[in-house]
């Protein structure tokens, strides 16, 4: 599972970086989205991957052994990071549209490069 997981992060991050370096604003935006997926998965993975384990202690089971549970902190971090990433992506989209409207091109520099 670890290998599949890290491969997924690697593919997402790699494509994200490639898109980030593209000259069109929409590609940059998509690059950021992919990169933030990769980052979020990475944070999640830092809490160690575990199957069938809850992040909340279940008082009914009565056992407070830490091996029965998964770390809740990275999950909380991921949640925050998702919310913030969502907001900044929306903001980026607005700026992207404004630049498109003002300059008439979707090049990141607001003008087409000399051919």
């Amino acid at each position: 599972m670890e290998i599949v997981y890290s491969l997924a992060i690697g593919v997402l991050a790699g494509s994200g970086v490639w898109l980030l370096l593209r000259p069109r604003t929409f590609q940059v935006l998509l690059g950021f989205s992919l990169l933030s997926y990769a980052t979020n998965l990475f944070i999640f993975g830092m809490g160690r991957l575990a199957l069938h384990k809850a992040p909340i202690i279940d008082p009914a089971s009565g056992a407070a052994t830490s091996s029965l549970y998964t770390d809740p902190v990275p999950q909380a971090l991921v949640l925050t990071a998702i919310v913030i990433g969502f907001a900044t992506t929306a903001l980026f989209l607005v700026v992207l549209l404004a630049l498109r409207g003002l300059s008439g091109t979707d090049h990141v520099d607001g003008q087409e490069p000399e051919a």
Partner: protein
Amino acid sequence: MNSVLRHLVVLPILIPLVAGATLFFLAEARRTARVTIAIVSMVAQLAVALGLLYLTSDAAPYIWPEGIGVYAIGGWPAPFGIVLVVDRLTAVMLTLGAIVSLATLVYSIARWDRPAQPFHSLFQFLAVGLNGAFLTGDLFNLFVFFEVLLAASYGLLLRGATGPRVKMGLHYIAINLAASLLFLIGVALIYGVAGTLNMADLAGRAAALAPNDRAFLDAGAAILGIAFLVKAGSWPLNFWLPGTYSAAVAPVAASFALMTKVGFYAVLRIGTLMQEYETLGAALLYIGLLTLITSTIGMLAAKHLGRLVAFTVLMSMGILLACLGLRVEALTAPALFYLVVSVLTTCTFFMLTGMTDRTRATESPTAAEGHEPDTQAVYPAYGIKTPSTYEQGDDVGIAIPAVMAFLGMMFVCCVLLVSGLPPMPGFTAKFALLATMVGASAEHGAPLSTWVLGAAILASGFVSVIALSRIGMRLFWSFAARTTPRLRLLEAAPVAMLVLLCLGLTLAADPVSRYLDSAARSLHQPDTYIRAVLSQETRREQRGAPRP
């Protein structure tokens, strides 16, 4: 009484948050109410910051005996709960932030804040982010407050959206988003290895890590460091900064004066807490030197005043980072003094730029665009009809006679501040830096890097005189078509006040540097900080403390 005073720690975040939210719901037309709320909020922040400054000093040992106040939000003890920590460095930064925000707010009321709907709220949220970043005691909240700060700055930067401004805004947002992702990766790596995000707890655990895990922690810290250095504007991660700062309208650029220093603050805070990072520290010296050199060259090349001032921001950052990189503990206090001076300087200078731009609106394209701050060009961009602008009332306000004389005087003061000439505190700060360097090298033998840095600091001061006097001559002495601008008292007053404050800093250099000395000393005793945050005593106090 003491238990009430303890709650002062959370106020620098709460006050602007509440004020910003309130301002959001106040109608545009209720201008008096809006302006009053905004100003009251900033004055209250300044008062709280001054209070914290006093309470953390040696003069008031009865609340926080070691000058470190810990505030557990929600009452959970560290390292499990989230804590705010105020020590002397934090108090200094909070005060500096409040002064800068208040001055730029008053300045912006003159004419820059219309249409006001988002402006005042964003301005308050910027303060939330700044104060929070200085106060927070754990890495993840540092990230959150950075994001609050940046989100507000995106909005402020895009004010009066014109083509170049939106373009620079896009670049700025892209760079900062990338830096934020690096920040997150660094934080996650550190958490994955150390199992904590609380800075004090982290510092304690870092030493006890197995060598295998140690490598991951180092990698995480390095990635985190890169994120901070992007925000601090250090070479080679700073190419966004001059364009962005000179594209922003004057009060916004002025309020950004502190933002690069947040990155420096984070480097300083975490660097002193985790003292094992000797090699990273050595790298800072070269990074700082290169920043200093490139910004000096940039200053000579800059044609427009705003761009030149942006390069002086980089220059001060280069000096600060290089001083940090020398790893001489005695240098921290003078570096902090220099930080205070340079923040006030750049803030004043950016505000002045906004006023001189009006004299030569045709000079450069950036200036021409900066001329009309309220251009609502962004509406046609979306195909929306431009809403009717709020009546500008262009001649309201007292026009100061001899405007050019005033502007010239202020310009000269700013030049003295930047280049570090007496009687301005820029001189005191640089002198203290150089004297400490010479003193330290006399004690431990002089490594070449110390002398190189000293020479670079002096040379950059000299070059800044050349570059600034060249631009000053063009601005004030040339006979080309020039319109004497109408100056509003509201714009002139904060600039004059800041210059006077700087002069005051020269006079009060002794008490100020003594306070900064104690701040630096407590920075270099991380054990005190760690103990204060993690101590049992904090927990008991917090449980006993009444809820606000």
